[in-house]
């Protein structure tokens, strides 16, 4: 202590100032670092829960299966087996929450989005040039979407 005080005055002053700044920095750091910071890594651990806490928008095929198991099973046997119900029927969350709410009927637009011929599409998917294939707008006249191999 004595030695410290016998340092030249300007140095003493600067050392004290430096210590004060460093103390202020660490105090600020202690106060301003969020609690969960560093829980898993260099980030707020609570962020994981926050991001996971959002409400899902699409209900998912599993949810449809709880009531419409019969249709889902039928679908699983045919070529459209990989399809999710909501791909064609649209978001079903409102319907899940309240079965009274009906979903809009899928139509021509949905069929053409996947089956319109394009040189960019892989060969495995059935493709048609709509203008040549059929002039109407109701694909279900000839095709059953849940069992594409069948003819009604």
């Amino acid at each position, binding site marked *: 202590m004595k030695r410290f005080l016998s340092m*030249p*005055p*300007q*140095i003493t002053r600067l050392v004290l100032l430096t210590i004060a700044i460093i103390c202020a*920095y660490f105090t*600020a*750091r202690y106060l*301003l*670092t969020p609690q969960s910071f560093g829980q898993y890594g*260099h980030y707020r651990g609570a962020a994981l829960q926050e991001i996971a806490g959002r409400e899902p928008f699409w209900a998912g095929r599993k949810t449809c299966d709880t009531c419409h198991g019969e249709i889902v099973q039928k679908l699983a046997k045919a070529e459209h087996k990989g399809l999710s119900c909501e791909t064609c029927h649209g978001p079903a969350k409102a319907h899940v929450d309240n079965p009274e709410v009906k979903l809009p009927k899928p139509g021509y637009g949905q069929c053409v989005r996947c089956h319109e011929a394009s040189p960019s599409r892989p060969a495995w998917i059935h493709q048609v040039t709509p203008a040549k294939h059929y002039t109407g707008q109701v694909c279900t006249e000839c095709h059953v979407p849940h069992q594409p191999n069948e003819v009604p």
Partner: protein
Amino acid sequence: MNADLLTNAVDLIPQVQGYAYPNERTLHPLWSVLIVVYPYVTGLVAGAFIMASLVRVLNVKALEPIYRLALLTALAFMLCATLPLLFHLGHPERCYEIMMTPHFTSPMAMFGFVYAWYLMAVLLLELWFDYRRDFVDWSRTESGLRGLIYRAFTLGVTDLSEPALRLDARMGRIISVVGIPSAFLLHGYVGFIFGSIKANPWWGNVLMPIIFILSAVVSGMALCVFAYLFLCWTRRVTADMRCLDLMTSFLFYALVIDATIEGLDWLHRLYSAEEGIEVLRSLASGKLFYTLLLGQAMMGTLVPLLLLGSLQLARKWVSDLNRRRVYFGCSALILLGVLAMRWNVVIGGQLFSKSMRGFMSYKMEFAGHEGWWLSLALLALPFIILTVLIKYFLALDLPTIENVVPGAVRRPHSSQAAEGRAG
């Protein structure tokens, strides 16, 4: 023909030629003029400091008239260096997080500490030790607000005894020695912010920090020449030609090294034909033609190189007035050239898609967050601060040859340092 058709079709997307990732199709680059200003201002700090250090570390006596001016310039620009970054943030109110939870692998977070170190431990300390005697003197003679400010700056130390002043001089020298690598670190880090981005072939380059340091030194020296001549002109005093000639020859050599390394960078890129070289080549001959080839290479580098270089050889035959004119013009050109270089790096690096398949264009905006007015204001702010600093801290000793002689008595460091070495 078919190819043209498709290119036209893709061109329907505004401002994109060829293909760019959908997220890259923005109205203006993510980092716009503000981020051009940021490395420019930081570079001027580092360069001006190097200029000042020449006096202290290398003991170049002829440069004494600009020692304080260079340090004050560095300080004025340093105080503004982080402002463009701050204004650019999406959440400026969260900026404290950079200091509270710095991510050690991030060049930007480390810049915060390098900046703090440089401002507090180098620039302010060096200025304080240099000015301490004057603060004490002025606080005794001046009254009112000025006197109060000077008194606060003495930090309550009024000891002006012989050993105390000798200590000030010694400390100043030590800090200068530490300061040079710190100045390199400061601007090298700015270069590393860009150089570390491997996703971008224009930026991700080992030479980037070095190029940034060198161009910083060049621009800072040019700024010192510019500010000195400007100050002499406003105060209607004759500039010290010995000091000016020496400053500009340092500037010339720095420019030679800078131009060589930048040329080497381009040569290497072209020769090794790295990924994306086609994109860079078409940028240089197209969208960046004016700023890169004309602005940066011609007006900012070649012309000053030729003018300053010929003055190195033919100094004797050119009158003082004409030399001053050439120096003034060259320093202004270099300052603009380095600004163009920052533009080319920052904006140029965002004019092409990272898919290397297309180009975006830059739509200039005047008002607003990313606009020109804000950038111009931020570029003008350090000059305003510098004016205030000069008014308060350089008013009492004019940086001319006539004043250096009494100044040497007023300012202890030169005579004291000599004594210190003798003793």
